[in-house]
């Protein structure tokens, strides 16, 4: 039996009065690219932060390579985090450091070797060595995303998280980023977990799709079965309709036209 790379079982998290996750069960298998879809505020980012150990769940278990993550501390938590790379929604580049120091941030070694590694990784995401000495603020949004992507893969972690990789990008840049993620996931044989509400991303990046709604996973399946899926929540989400079982708070009583 293959041990799932990541297994969430009954994971719950509450922020004040808001129950964000109410028992999430989800497996991510080694080498697959899973995309979690769901509306804004459904706890997708929270799920990633729970797995990384940035926040602790109220209940449930999170296993990575069969090892329990909840309650890890100190060196064990550091070792756990060493398995992950993460592309943050806004890039989260350190704006006080030049591009090459951002990309090579988690790498050890001399400055020259780290700089060379940074340039290699920049090349992987289609950026030339001339950007290495620029500051993040001097780059366009799409280039910042690419630099952040280079930083996420630089230490060659076996698992990479992509948090809303295309948010704030124009459709063409978004398509380039999606292709890059797909390419890197395949070439580097990583396990990829992406959260998005961009259906273009889903179709390019995913092997398998899971939908998070009202604090739990309400549907999951291979990408190919997404369009044939008869779950009304999923149908409403993938067709992008304002009408259906998912209602925006405050709009629930508006008459349908």
């Amino acid at each position: 039996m293959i041990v799932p790379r990541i297994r969430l079982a009954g994971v719950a998290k509450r922020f004040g009065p808001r129950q964000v996750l109410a028992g999430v069960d989800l497996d991510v298998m080694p080498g697959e690219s899973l995309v979690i879809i769901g509306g804004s505020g459904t706890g997708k980012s929270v799920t990633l932060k729970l797995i990384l150990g940035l926040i602790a769940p109220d209940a449930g278990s999170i296993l990575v390579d069969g090892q329990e993550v909840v309650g890890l501390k100190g060196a064990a938590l550091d070792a756990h985090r060493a398995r992950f790379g993460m592309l943050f929604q806004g890039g989260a580049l350190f704006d006080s450091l030049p591009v090459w120091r951002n990309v090579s941030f988690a790498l050890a070694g001399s400055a020259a070797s780290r700089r060379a590694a940074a340039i290699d990784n920049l090349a992987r995401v289609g950026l030339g060595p001339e950007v290495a000495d620029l500051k993040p603020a001097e780059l366009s949004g799409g280039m910042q995303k690419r630099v952040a992507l280079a930083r996420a893969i630089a230490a060659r972690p076996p698992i990479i998280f992509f948090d809303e990789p295309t948010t704030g990008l124009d459709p063409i840049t978004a398509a380039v980023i999606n292709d890059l993620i797909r390419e890197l996931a395949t070439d580097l044989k990583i396990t990829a977990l992406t959260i998005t509400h961009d259906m273009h991303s889903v179709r390019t990046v995913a092997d398998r799709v899971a939908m998070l709604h009202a604090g739990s996973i309400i549907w999951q399946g291979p990408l190919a079965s997404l369009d044939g899926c008869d779950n009304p929540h999923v149908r409403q989400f993938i067709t992008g309709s304002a009408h259906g079982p998912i209602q925006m708070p405050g709009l629930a009583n508006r008459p349908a036209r």
Partner: protein
Amino acid sequence: MALVAIGASVLAAFAAVGRLARFAGTALIRLVQPPWYPAQWLNQMLVIGWLSLPVVGLTAIFTGSALAQQIFIGGSRFNAASTVPAVTVIGVVRELGPVLGGLMVAGRVASAMAAELGTMRVTEQIDALVTLRTDPFRWLVAPRILAAVLVMPFLVLVSNALGVMGGWLLATQRLGFNSAQYLATTARYLQVDDVASSLVKAAVFGFFIALMGCFHGYHSGGGAAGVGRATTNAVVSSFILILLANLVITVILFGS
């Protein structure tokens, strides 16, 4: 009802103090454990120390001069105008040098730290540090606290020297004091204890300035408004802590 409200706010205050103490404790423990980032330390010393020199120096000169003028006016009323050099040096070194220097650095540095760390928090740069296996306390907080504690005494020495110089300038140029005599009196009344107390105050103020800047920035709420609040809170709380700590240290050292 009133009791409940009072109880709740007292509890909240204790909780806040507890959070702050835990934050400070974590920062200090991480400061003494490797890995260390000496480049970050040096950079912070430069930012906090070197770049604060102009504002601290100007404040000291202006205040030292004004103090000498006031002592001259006050002293003249009972034929004690000759006390200007002695009272100026004591006033500057014991109180005005460290306190005004501390407040100016707090205004400059605590606000900048809170804004920088707050922005890093809301743009997920602090989370990114963690995912890149770098402890934000070691990378961001400890270097700032260390740099502020080490650099503030030097800034206050400069502040003291320029404050005394401001008094001397005004006294010799406008009040008719003899320069050599003024300096001799200053030297006679300046005690080692005064300078030592001034340096102790400076280090304590430096600690509170960096602690408040980092604490409020690190726990900044969402968006531009959250960072703005963090910045305001950092400046206001470091001002209050500086003035309170000054009172406590003054009473302990000079009260008996």
